[in-house]
């Protein structure tokens, strides 16, 4: 045991001496790199990496920016270990986070050590309550539902909605919001069916969904499971319109033949915004990965960009780039130019951003409408 500790200390010593300049900055990425949610980690990190590249290429900061990753496996305990390493060993002032369970577990650590944590993937309502140092670059699900419902009811005339959801805070929030919003818009929640997070067979659920004869089906799940739900609903005679939230923006769901025609909300991104930031991000991503970036890529790109903007401002003012200063700087900054949109942070660290409705077609998703305010 002692030998192991000495070995670890030696390793840390070695990494410290390899850091060249004091002006170089490092941020952390606590993402699921392995396990059943590793697809998300891959997507999120591609956005973050591109942003780091761009920040270095345009010399936004005085030194070089690099990002160090820890594998959270989307599990709280692993997340805590990874967070501790990032905060205490790599000493980063800024960490990218993902998955609600992990975020909740690391929030106390970030708050105690005054490290900024940014989520660009989860949309559960509990993510708004994790303290000052926890920010979100993605609008939370209640906004998304509020955007989808009027569109479904008023623009598409789909009044009876059936809901299939995973019974966690996100799902529960969707149930609540759907009921309220449908009531306001003149629609009706025809039935709500919760599924366990590990379920893989949905033919029974499909039967019950058919039974309530809905006009549309709203799905609140994520990862592999949401694809399985879509496929099995379609296979089992549910031909109604499918609607969901931003979790649909993963490659495996977008590529699923059964998901064609499904609609989902996401943060509004004006692809035609001709400003440099948007163009460069789009072009470089397409060059590197051969396809268009999805919303998640954008959110993590934007998160890192936010760091870049704030850190640059701090450097100009001669202040050290610490979590505390980053928070103060964010509060002092009115708006941020994200890729495809300009947003502002609310006091509780969430962003208010316009929402758009997308539809899945042959080549991925395309925006079809803006949400009414």
């Amino acid at each position, binding site marked *: 045991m002692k030998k192991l500790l000495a070995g670890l200390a030696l390793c840390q010593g070695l990494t410290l001496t390899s850091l060249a300049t004091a002006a170089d900055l490092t941020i952390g990425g606590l993402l699921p790199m*392995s396990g059943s949610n590793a697809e998300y980690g891959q997507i999120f990190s591609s956005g973050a990496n591109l942003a780091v590249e761009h920040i270095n290429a345009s010399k936004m900061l005085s030194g070089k920016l690099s990002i160090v*990753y820890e594998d959270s496996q989307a599990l709280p305990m692993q997340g805590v270990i990874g967070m501790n*390493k990032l905060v205490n060993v790599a000493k980063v002032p800024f960490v990218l986070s993902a998955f609600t369970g992990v975020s909740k577990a690391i929030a106390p650590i970030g708050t105690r050590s005054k490290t900024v944590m940014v989520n660009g993937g989860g949309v559960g309502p509990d993510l708004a309550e994790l303290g000052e140092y926890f920010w979100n670059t993605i609008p939370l699900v209640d906004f998304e539902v509020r955007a989808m419902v009027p569109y479904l009811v008023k623009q598409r005339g789909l009044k009876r909605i059936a809901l299939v959801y995973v019974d966690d805070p996100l799902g529960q929030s969707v149930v609540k919001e759907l009921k309220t919003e449908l009531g306001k818009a003149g629609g009706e929640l025809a039935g709500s069916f919760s599924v366990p997070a590990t379920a893989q067979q949905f033919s029974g659920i499909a039967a019950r969904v058919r039974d309530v004869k809905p006009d549309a089906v709203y799905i609140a799940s994520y990862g592999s499971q949401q694809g399985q739900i879509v496929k099995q609903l379609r296979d089992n005679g549910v031909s109604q319109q499918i609607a969901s939230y931003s979790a649909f923006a993963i490659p495996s769901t977008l590529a699923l033949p059964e998901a064609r025609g499904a609609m989902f909300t996401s943060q509004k991104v004006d692809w035609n915004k001709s400003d440099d930031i948007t163009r460069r991000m789009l072009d470089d991503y397409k060059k590197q990965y051969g396809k268009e970036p999805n919303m998640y890529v954008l959110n993590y790109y934007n998160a890192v960009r936010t760091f870049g903007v704030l850190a640059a401002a701090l450097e100009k003012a001669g202040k050290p780039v610490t979590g505390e200063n980053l928070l103060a700087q964010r509060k002092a900054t009115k708006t941020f130019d994200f890729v495809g949109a300009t947003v502002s942070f609310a006091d509780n660290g969430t962003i208010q951003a316009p929402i758009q409705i997308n539809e899945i077609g042959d080549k991925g998703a395309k925006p079809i409408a803006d949400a009414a305010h």
Partner: protein
Amino acid sequence: MLAYLQNIAVLFCVNAMLAVTLNFIMGYAGIFSLAHAIFFGVGAYVAANIAMHFSDSLLLCVAGAVLVSGALSMVLALPALRVRGEYFVAASLGLQVIGVTVFSEWKGVTGGLGGLVGIPPPTVFGHALATPGEFLALAVAGLAAVLLITTALLRGSFGRSLMAIRDSESAAQAAGKWVAAIKTLSVAVSAGLAGVAGAIYAFYMSFVNVEGFMLETSILLMAMVIIGGTGTVFGPIIGAALLMLLPAALTYLPFLPPSELGTVQQIVYGAIMVLLMMYRPGGLVGGRRKGGKA
């Protein structure tokens, strides 16, 4: 760096407590349970609930955790009394899956899939434990207590009876040992002390959710005991150290591409399990021979 090591140390102590208590029934009673994470979870949820709703006294919360975990272990004791070997493993597997479903659905007590946030720090004689150093002291104290209790039980006649039952149940019965009572008691002790680990974990993380108590955790604990060496005192501790520190140490390897970091770590972890079982099945402490010594 110190804080990081303290963090790993606290979680190591918690895992070691779980491994030692699992070894108590696996290595000495021959009861191979895949449901240990459930008792860990029960302890955590009970302690969290007591702290959040009644009193944050450490003693009270831990006592509650021990009592409820121990009482619940009767569900595991039932199949332990009726079947052995693979059948018991499958029954414990069933209990593990059912337990996870209960944790996920009983929202009033466990917070459902969202878990319980903001668990207050425990107080000892009016002083709230908040710093990493204090939690480390608590965790080490917990591990020491678990080791003391289990070793004391094993050194005495209880331990001898337990091992007699493991080696030949019918002979033990013929010799007049009350097999059912001893088995039940051992399961209760194991579960109750796992509950202590759960309480410490809940306070340290100040957040618990079902993701920490799933089948993967139970399997990891079982691997710790087996790799370290069943039926030995230090085996589970070595096993816990290895399986916990290994992923942390692997993150220092510079040549791994960041996107494959996690998968390579898991591959190494799996490969080590396989190789150890092939060439050193008694575990690291037990050596080539399996089975326990007193």
